[in-house]
């Protein structure tokens, strides 16, 4: 019952973000390791209910930004606010409450290898919710089916799953607590084009069904084309262009222009014959 009231409080007392306000608000973020500065005064807003695609050169700091927002990498300067709350000003409890409202899909899935898929999905439920085992099992199956897996997958160990199934199972775990924000780190990397296409569709569907805000780091031009509402491009440690596809295509920044007008971009249907 304690858990119950805590969750209620967190859902009730936390200031809600009004529609149109940024749900993630990053200002002048500086992050570096040792001598190297990776993010040099980066600013970015993610709006409620949108799918934001985040692109950038390999090693350019895309994952670093995600990890900094999630609090896995310390920042040197700047502010990060999620749900209108500055992450630096949070108490331990506030932080815990906030972490229940976002879900993360790591690039390699990061499923706990010693637990079965069912146990992986129920892991956050057990910690934060007060549910009977029967209901938790039903909920687990519902989540698995949402991400396109069947009930058979529940008792498998992560090492028995294929790459695509790992991503889906990890997505089900990320959705275990019905988060409001979903962070995806290269969700389609390592999937075949058909699998990647299905995954894109899945994310779009889930976003509709669950009313998610999705922050997606990706290299997949098809994903950017089909599911992203807006795209942010990272170059030289800053966001150099942000907006829908048209804005990207019109951008004069050399890296952005090379990215969206390259051979592969044309193959994905960008550039040559105009947008969409």
């Amino acid at each position, binding site marked *: 019952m304690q858990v119950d009231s805590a969750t209620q409080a967190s859902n009730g007392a936390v200031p809600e973000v009004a529609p149109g306000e940024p749900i993630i608000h990053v200002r002048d973020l500086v992050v570096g390791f040792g001598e190297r500065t990776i993010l040099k005064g980066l600013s970015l807003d993610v709006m409620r209910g949108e799918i934001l695609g985040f692109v950038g050169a390999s090693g350019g700091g895309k994952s670093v930004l995600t990890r900094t927002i999630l609090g896995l990498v310390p920042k040197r300067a700047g502010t990060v606010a999620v749900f209108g709350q500055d992450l630096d000003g949070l108490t331990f409890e506030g932080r815990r409450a906030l972490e229940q409202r976002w879900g993360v899909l790591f690039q390699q899935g990061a499923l706990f290898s010693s637990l079965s898929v069912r146990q992986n999905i129920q892991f956050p439920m057990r910690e934060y919710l007060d549910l009977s085992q029967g209901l938790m099992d039903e909920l687990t199956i519902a989540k698995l089916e949402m991400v396109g897996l069947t009930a058979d997958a529940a008792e498998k160990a*992560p090492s028995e799953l294929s790459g695509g199934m790992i991503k889906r199972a990890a997505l089900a775990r990320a959705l275990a607590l019905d988060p409001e924000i979903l962070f995806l780190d290269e969700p389609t990397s390592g999937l075949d084009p058909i699998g990647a296409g299905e995954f894109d569709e899945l994310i779009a569907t889930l976003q509709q*069904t669950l009313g998610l805000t999705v922050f997606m780091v990706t290299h997949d031009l098809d994903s950017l084309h089909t599911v992203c509402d807006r795209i942010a491009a990272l170059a030289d440690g800053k966001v150099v262009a942000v907006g829908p596809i048209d804005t990207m295509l019109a951008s004069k920044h050399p890296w952005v222009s090379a990215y969206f007008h390259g051979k592969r971009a044309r193959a994905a249907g960008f550039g040559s014959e105009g947008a969409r």
Partner: protein
Amino acid sequence: MGAAEAPLLATARNGRELVFVGNGRWVAGQGRALEGSVDAALAEVASGASETARIDLSGVRSLDTLGAVVLDRLLQALDKANIRFQIVGLERRFRPLLDDIIKGSHAHPPRRRRVNPILGGIQLIGKTMASTAEDGLALLSFIGAVVAALLRVLVRPLSFRFTSMIYHLERTGLRAVPIVALITFLIGCIIAQQGIFHFRKFGATTYVVDMVGILTLRELGVLIVSIMVAGRSGSAFTAELGSMRMREEVDALRVMGFDPNEVLVLPRLIALIIAVPLLTFIGNMCALFGGGLVVWLYGGISPEIFITRLQEAIALNTFEVGMIKAPFMAAIIGLIACMEGMRVGGSAESLGAHTTASVVKAIFLVIVVDGLFAMFFAAIDM
């Protein structure tokens, strides 16, 4: 929060029509309460005598997956009881989620079977026996593979990874010197101190020198060093090879036409076989030094007397008995460590289990083999 005071799901009966009125937040945080309300409603459904149902959800302010799953329970029960129902007042934005859940298969995860504890115990014994036998076979086949790799290397000595061997020699040998020296020194001190303390009662203090000399040179030096090496280098070998297996590095070697036993195992094994005798020698000397120091400071026997007494007490074969055992101990530790590393599966847990197994088995076998050697040397009068 006035609206939240209303029950999450209220049930009423209107003639032959059931009326359900939902209110408040149908979210995971309310899990128990929601389940309770819906189960109460299910009881009402089961009591029969209804033809239609009306589910008024206009008071539901939020609905998440859990809320939808619980609601779906109610709908399924209504379906089963052949009651026609309609849902009214549900906010449009919740509809896709509910539809998605209704569409689901409603499969139940396979129940874990309960095992009879007695049968389970017997089963466990059987499994353990089988896995022990399997371990023995695996070790034999691994030794075979390593010997085959060794023979190939002997035929083409240039293919031996000399650099790798030197690297491992430094790690397992040179860098182990300080800790091995310290531990064996302390062991020597302790034996001497205990010896003096107890032998003094019989006036046989000088025999402490015999005891320190024979005990450390024949048995303790090599045992302590082997145990240290099993814990220090054996575990490292297992963890290294295991994580290489987990990340498919071993498979990468194999498809490039290399034999992992030749590239990974042999240099480690040979480095260990060279390092352990050297460490044993250092350990022996340190133990004697420690013993001599305590005998001098605590027992009042001067170093000159200690050395003379030591010469009388021990012969070269005392030293040899210890040293002969060292390379065998090294081979046991190296083989077990590498074999366990090569058997690591996909999970982090498996890596931990095999690293533990590597150290435990190596120490166990080292002690067993030490016992066999003791019998052997007794038989040949050495």
